[in-house]
């Protein structure tokens, strides 16, 4: 019982450390919050004119769910950088030498990163509403869509913690930042996988990001392309299954990696 209580209170202490970071370095927080909005505006106003959307729908309606998933993907960089920085700077070792709850390090990280993603999503939704995006099926499904996004973020959290502990080098985030883009583009975020060469389109449909985006569009009643591949047809199911699979793989890996820091 006390173990659980300390896991929560210590975890919150660590989450609050990140909140203090935002206050101490507000410019970084503002850039993180506004970057997806910048992308949304760039893609909808600079490139959006050339984009066809089924049923004469609005490209911005199409784009907002995709950008929301991109926010989750960008969160991977945040998780990775924080974990790798703490590992190299000796902060992780300091935590490990304190009589605090061992799971609090992960819980605190999860809390801080989820809060950051939620704040970024909130700003994106605000911007989306301003450029004409709406949810059309009522609040319930819209919250369901939010839950899908959070589920994806939680899965990426495990991935980020594992990779951060593995690399233990904050510089490696550059590699992550580069990798996030093919992951984002090889999906249905910006355009229909059906317009890609056949096999590439299938990969794009199979991308976990695509599943989440398709599910969010469905739940919010935003336009999307009817898929032809098995992955596209079962997107809503996959939006739940994919993150759970990622979690099942990477959560144990991350825990093991953390426990093996004493090797």
């Amino acid at each position, binding site marked *: 019982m006390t173990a659980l209580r300390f896991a929560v209170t210590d975890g919150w202490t660590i989450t609050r450390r990140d909140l203090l970071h935002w206050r101490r370095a507000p410019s970084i927080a503002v850039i993180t919050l506004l970057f997806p909005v910048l992308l949304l505006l760039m893609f909808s106003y600079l490139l959006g004119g050339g984009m066809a959307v089924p049923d004469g729908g609005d490209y911005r309606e199409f784009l907002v769910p995709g950008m929301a998933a991109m926010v989750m993907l960008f969160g991977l960089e945040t998780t990775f950088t924080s974990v790798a920085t703490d590992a190299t700077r000796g902060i992780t070792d300091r935590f490990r*030498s304190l009589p605090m709850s061992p799971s609090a390090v992960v819980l605190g990280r999860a809390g801080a990163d989820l809060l950051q993603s939620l704040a970024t999503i909130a700003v994106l939704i605000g911007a989306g509403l301003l450029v004409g995006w709406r949810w059309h099926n009522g609040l319930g499904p819209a919250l369901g869509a939010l839950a899908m996004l959070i589920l994806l973020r939680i899965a990426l959290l495990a991935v980020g913690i594992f990779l951060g502990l593995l690399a233990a080098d904050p510089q490696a985030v550059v590699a992550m930042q580069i990798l996030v883009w093919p992951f984002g583009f090889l999906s249905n975020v910006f355009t229909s996988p059906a317009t890609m060469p056949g096999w590439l389109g299938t990969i794009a449909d199979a991308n976990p990001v695509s599943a989440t985006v398709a599910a969010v569009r469905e739940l919010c009643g935003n336009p999307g392309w009817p898929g032809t591949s098995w992955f596209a047809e079962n997107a809503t199911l996959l939006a739940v299954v994919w993150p759970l699979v990622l979690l099942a793989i990477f959560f144990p890996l991350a825990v093991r990696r953390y426990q093996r820091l*004493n090797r």
Partner: protein
Amino acid sequence: MPAIEATGLVKRYGADTALAGLDLAVPEGTVCGLLGPNGAGKTTAVRILTTLLRPDAGHATVAGIDVVKDPAKAKAALGLVGQHAAVDEVLSGRENLQLFGRLHHLGARTATRRADELLAAFGLTDAATKSVRHYSGGMRRRLDLAAGLITEPRVLFLDEPTTGLDPRSRAEIWSAVRDLVRRGTTVLLTTQYLEEADQLADRIALLDHGRLAAEGTSDELKAVLGGDRVEVLLVDQSDVDEAAHLLAVPGLEVDRDAAKVSIPATDRVDTLSGVIRTLADAAIPAQDIAIRRPTLDEVFLHLTATEVPA
């Protein structure tokens, strides 16, 4: 019961052996200086004793608690200041100490009060609200040390606490360590500075290639080199041979390049005045004549020499 006890600690990294069977016992309330050249295994030993690393073999207790079997309990009794400053760069000094205080399960108000006490004790009050990014290396190190002292641990581990500090900051840290010891904390400190071990440590353990090369008080270790010597620094290098000839006794040492001759100070002042007389009679001018105790540096070099001079 010793505050720190290690028997047969072994740690291997692939083919490298960082610790090859380390035995160590530090009595309660004393300071043990762990000395050794780079790569001797000092940090490895500290990391095992502070539960951060599992030994491949051997057994260790801190404050009577097995660090492998009961790390959680051991952590409550120990404090660690690692080799590299482990503080949050973005937060201020006070925020850092509050954070670590909270993680020691102090209440919010106690954590703040303790943070302010420590900031004052380490001369950081003026910089309390500044981001650590803007701290100098010495300020960072002092903050790091303060973070290790939040709950006045029963056993404190300091891994090279003063490396890179100016003499004044070093003296401040020394006096902080002495205060703690006075209040009953046992300290194990590793250092590259032999003077530091000489100043602070009751006993010194000399580590080399993962093994204890020697152990004892500073005086005991210096006695390894055969005690005090009378050392003569001549004005003229060409006089060295004649001086050596006149002073000839067993244990005479000559350093031609430095124009130095030295003999064991068997009868202390009598030996000294004998040397002065001999040189004066032969009209050999000397710059400096003194009784000198071997420094720990010499002991260190002697005991950790990889090539034994022929």
